[in-house]
């Protein structure tokens, strides 16, 4: 087990794997973790300098029930299973989840008329607990809702989750269970062969018997390296606004739009960090790197958000960001085994990938067996317990016992998010340490609050620099 970020990859036998998973997003990390149960040599290879650095870090952070999936699809099944698996895993691994339930709010007659059909669809997807709410009950449940809400469909079971901790928990557990994680390691060429495929990466050559493509937005480009052209990924940009924690009391549920002919609309949702999120936009683009926000996008979101929850607009905006979903023009995942190539493509994992990740991983294990993988006996994974980033669970700055053991947990560095020096030091020394300040933010919330580093930016950079210097020192000593 190791994590490498720089320098040449290991050579010889150390570079020979049974399975290489390309792409360390939430899906690739889940697959690597599932494989790590077996006595196999596994590598998880990632082009970016951190896990979960693409679509997995910039999404709506919802653990879906799959009530609105297209019944009968692979996605519908894997989302339903994934919701159950991830809910249980989150409790075990310390991933913050808040089961707030969702309300699909109808703002016009057409939307209200659509609610019973959505309830029916939910039932076909195995969700029998939805309930229609009249306007009065809706107003009592969400007193800050804007004028004109006609009713809602309640979907219990919809939850908010920390997407950063989820990916990191999978990857951490995979690494602790023996997986090699190679970061900054873009695969540039694939030379299929037997018994080993050769992967030419920016940092050297890897050899593997079986290959998994979990490249997210780039799954089509990776397919092309292997000689497949089955689908095209069209990035769909979602811009989001995150409002100040003072907005949190304005909303109790995940407020989902009713899909209609005019598009999907936007959602308003609490986050596990105690903020309120508004978005996403849905813009089909050509550029797979276009993760910028736009003036039109943000203005449009504010206009829609102001109708849903008028008081939201009085609060400060803490963060603006955009993520890209991997749309393929098909209302389902594009997961396919290519036994002749000993290769599995896990493509078209759209906005439900976070929820479905654990179920996708189990499904992919089956496909790898179809491609000739003999996984051998299963054994328990190394345990993992992630630092809590959620407001609904105890945080270190309020933990008297922890502070008594280590006063560093009583020293708050990031005041907006109440992140202590102890947490920052622990993240910097963790199994998969962050590659930069953004990675540190995703592990601790430091610099992620309302001041965005105005108060703590310099101090956090100093702590990061200390850790980097120590690491350099250790490397030089080796």
């Amino acid at each position, binding site marked *: 087990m190791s994590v490498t970020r720089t320098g040449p990859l290991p050579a010889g036998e150390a570079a020979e794997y049974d399975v290489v998973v390309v792409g360390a997003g939430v899906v690739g990390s889940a697959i690597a973790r599932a494989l790590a149960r077996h006595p196999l040599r596994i590598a998880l290879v990632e082009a970016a300098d951190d896990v979960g650095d693409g679509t997995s870090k910039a999404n709506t952070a919802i653990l879906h029930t799959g009530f609105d999936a297209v019944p009968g699809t692979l996605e519908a099944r894997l989302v339903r299973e994934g919701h159950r698996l991830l809910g249980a895993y989150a409790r075990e691994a310390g991933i913050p989840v808040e089961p707030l339930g969702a309300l699909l709010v109808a703002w016009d007659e057409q939307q209200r008329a659509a609610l019973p059909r959505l309830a029916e669809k939910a039932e076909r997807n195995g969700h029998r607990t939805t309930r229609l709410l009249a306007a009065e009950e809706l107003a009592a449940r969400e007193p800050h809702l804007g004028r004109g809400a006609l009713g809602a469909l309640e979907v219990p079971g919809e939850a908010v989750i920390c997407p950063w901790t989820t990916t990191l928990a999978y990857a951490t557990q995979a690494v602790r269970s023996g997986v090699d994680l190679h970061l900054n390691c873009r695969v540039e060429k694939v030379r299929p062969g037997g018994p080993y495929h050769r992967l030419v990466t920016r940092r050297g050559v890897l050899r593997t018997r079986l290959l998994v493509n979990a490249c997210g937005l780039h799954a089509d480009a990776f397919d092309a390296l292997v000689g497949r052209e089955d689908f095209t990924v069209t990035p769909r940009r979602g811009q989001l606004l995150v409002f100040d924690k003072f907005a949190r009391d304005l909303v109790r549920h995940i407020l989902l739009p009713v899909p209609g002919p005019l598009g999907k609309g936007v959602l308003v949702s609490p986050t596990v960090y105690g903020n309120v999120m508004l978005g996403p936009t849905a813009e089909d683009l050509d550029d797979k790197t276009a993760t910028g926000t736009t003036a039109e996008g943000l203005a449009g979101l504010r206009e829609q958000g102001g109708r849903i929850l008028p008081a939201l607009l009085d609060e400060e905006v803490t963060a603006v960001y955009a993520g890209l979903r991997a749309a393929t023009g098909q209302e389902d995942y594009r997961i396919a085994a290519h036994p002749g190539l000993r290769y599995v493509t896990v493509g078209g994992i759209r906005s439900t990938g976070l929820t479905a990740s654990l179920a996708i991983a189990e499904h992919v294990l089956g496909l790898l067996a179809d491609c000739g993988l003999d996984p051998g006996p299963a054994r328990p994974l190394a345990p993992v317990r992630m630092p809590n980033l959620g407001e609904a669970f105890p945080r270190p700055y309020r933990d008297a016992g922890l502070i008594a053991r280590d006063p560093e947990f009583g020293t708050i560095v990031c*005041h907006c998010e109440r992140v202590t020096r102890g947490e920052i030091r622990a993240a910097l020394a963790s199994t998969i340490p962050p590659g930069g300040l953004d990675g540190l933010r995703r592990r601790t919330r430091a610099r992620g609050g309302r001041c965005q*580093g*105005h108060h703590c930016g310099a101090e956090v950079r100093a702590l990061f620099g200390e850790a980097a210097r120590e690491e350099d020192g250790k490397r030089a000593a080796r």
Partner: protein
Amino acid sequence: MTRTVDVLVVGAGPAGLAAAARLAAAGAGRVEVLEREAAAGGVPRHCSRPGFGADARGRALDGPAYARRAVREALRAGATIRTGVSATGWAGPLTLDVTAPTGLERVRADAVVLATGARERPRSARLVPGTRPAGVLTTGELQRTVLRFGPRRERIGRRAVVVGGDPVARGAARTLRAAGVDVVAVVTGLPSPAVAFAGAPVLVGAVVTELLGRGRLTGVAVRGGDGRTTVLRCDTVVFTGDWIPDHELARARGLPLAPGTRGPVTDRDFRTAEPGVFAVGNLLRGVEPALVAAAEGRAAAGAVLERLGGRPWPAPGVPVTAAGPLRWVTPGLLGPEAAPLLVRPERRLSRPVLTVAQDGVPLRRERLGGTLVPWRSVRLGPRWTSGVDLAGGPVAVDAEE
């Protein structure tokens, strides 16, 4: 564990330290100041320029010297200053939850003085579109970077754009230059800059429309006064000014905020709506000079002592609001005694006529000599508020040119 003190001051900046010094000297008992940063002194610690008054011999003080003196005076008067200690919330009226390296505490006080200061809005709160690269700062983060690492270009960047046109922006430009960073341009929405920016081109009537670059900032797109958009190549952008009070504790206690300032509403003597809780300094309205904030801290001491002496909390008084081209006015409440007003215009006003009116009836109307500017407040003496009817409606302060 719960401890009890006579006065708990939250924030060891100019206002908090001045209040603590005056109260301790006046025999208020145990006066404790909580400071979440590792050092006391507040924002002046990062401002190595003159403009912070003078010492006893008349020599001009810079920010750090001023901060040291303020800390010394509070300690000498007998106040306790605890640094690296955070007040994280309220456990009850006049009782704060505190996190410190020594553990968790509850501190109860007979009077709580909130002096938590203000911050600049970051890029996100200003809704500036684009990517999220490194190299995007506020003046505060820039100054803290220099304080932490020294004036070293490699810790900041090579080419910077400064957004803003007032004295804070000039301070940012000077800090950048002193660290060896080129100031490529100053971008201001003002029709003309408030101050001179030696050596840097100033784009007036201009707005940053997009941040560019992945990983590190590579440039900012700017729409000029003529409507044309250009890209300025830079690896650093500093967003200056646009202050918002750090009102977290005030709001957590449910104190009403003034819409113009986003600070807690107080009366002339800095009493908030909550009996025993006072608010002073830049928490009230964003940034005023340190000397103004400190004067407020001292001025609040009288009412704090009255509170300790058992005087009942007065009725709230009559609300005061800013109207027309005025952005805000403080205090937000007027009591039986006439009070001076601090007024901030939204835009430049040349020789404006100011009116203080209650229920539409002018109490006073007067033309001011000179020009009001949006980056400086004007103080109206207590005569402007004499004759307010405590049984009447809100008082409005308005201006016209």
